[in-house]
């Protein structure tokens, strides 16, 4: 089962990073995020699975698609990959493979508990009590962070005064 989920998560992610068409990349990543939500459901973390569907599959993908469409360029202006880009891609894949080899070796060399017991039971009520009790301060900080981030995003993306829409300032 986990191998199937891994296939569902990793193959669209790798394909998304390889595509040259940005819309295809975004849609493939939606598939990968949905696979992650399926993994969370399989692990017994239902609340996180639905949060993943709402935030990533619903919201972040829409924001990404809007950004892609707002910054769309002529397809014929997209330059074919030159030598520098090929060199950069090769170095990036090499770096990622090295990092993956190190982490994978560390994981395989670590003795981890083999027995998979019953999944821990966590009802939404318990989760709410945790969030409002022990983690109430963190919840307030996250709320403030979200507010500040959204205001900052509006300030960054808003057109500057005196700039004509669609023209050079």
């Amino acid at each position, binding site marked *: 089962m986990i*191998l199937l989920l891994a296939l569902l998560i*990793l193959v669209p992610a*790798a394909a998304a990073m390889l595509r040259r068409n940005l819309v295809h990349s975004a849609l493939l990543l939606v598939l990968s995020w949905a696979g992650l939500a399926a993994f969370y459901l399989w692990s017994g973390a239902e609340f996180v699975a639905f949060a993943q569907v709402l*935030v*990533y599959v619903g919201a972040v993908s829409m924001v990404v698609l809007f950004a892609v469409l707002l910054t769309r360029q002529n397809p014929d202006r997209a330059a074919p990959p030159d030598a520098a880009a090929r060199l950069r891609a090769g170095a990036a894949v090499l770096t990622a493979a090295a*990092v*993956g080899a190190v982490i994978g070796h560390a994981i395989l060399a670590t003795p981890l508990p083999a027995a998979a017991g019953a999944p821990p039971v966590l009802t939404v009520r318990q989760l709410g009590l945790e969030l409002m009790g022990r983690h109430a301060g963190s919840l307030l900080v996250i709320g403030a962070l979200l507010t500040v981030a959204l205001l900052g*995003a509006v300030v960054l993306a808003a057109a500057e005064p005196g700039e004509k829409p669609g023209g050079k300032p």
Partner: protein
Amino acid sequence: MSPLHLCLLLSTGLFCIGLAGALSRSNAILVLLGIELMLNAANLNFIAFWRYGPAPSAGAGVVFVIFTIAVAAAEAAVGLALVIALHRHRRNLRLPEATRLKG
């Protein structure tokens, strides 16, 4: 090999795909998506340790993942606003050409 090993290897694979994408692509949106993939790999680790860990606590892993998802959503909003600002200033999204801080 225990299920925890498999989950950790899966998250390693996801992290490496995100890392390779973020390092190799020159389009700003794809770099941001690679970073999102790496954050998702971290979330996967939290859930794996919550489910199969040696000392399962009540809900610490799930609470951590909820906070991480909130931070990732804020990061995506600010990052895509930066992408739109970059596009307004330079008319393209190629990061190797965006070498000046002052527009």
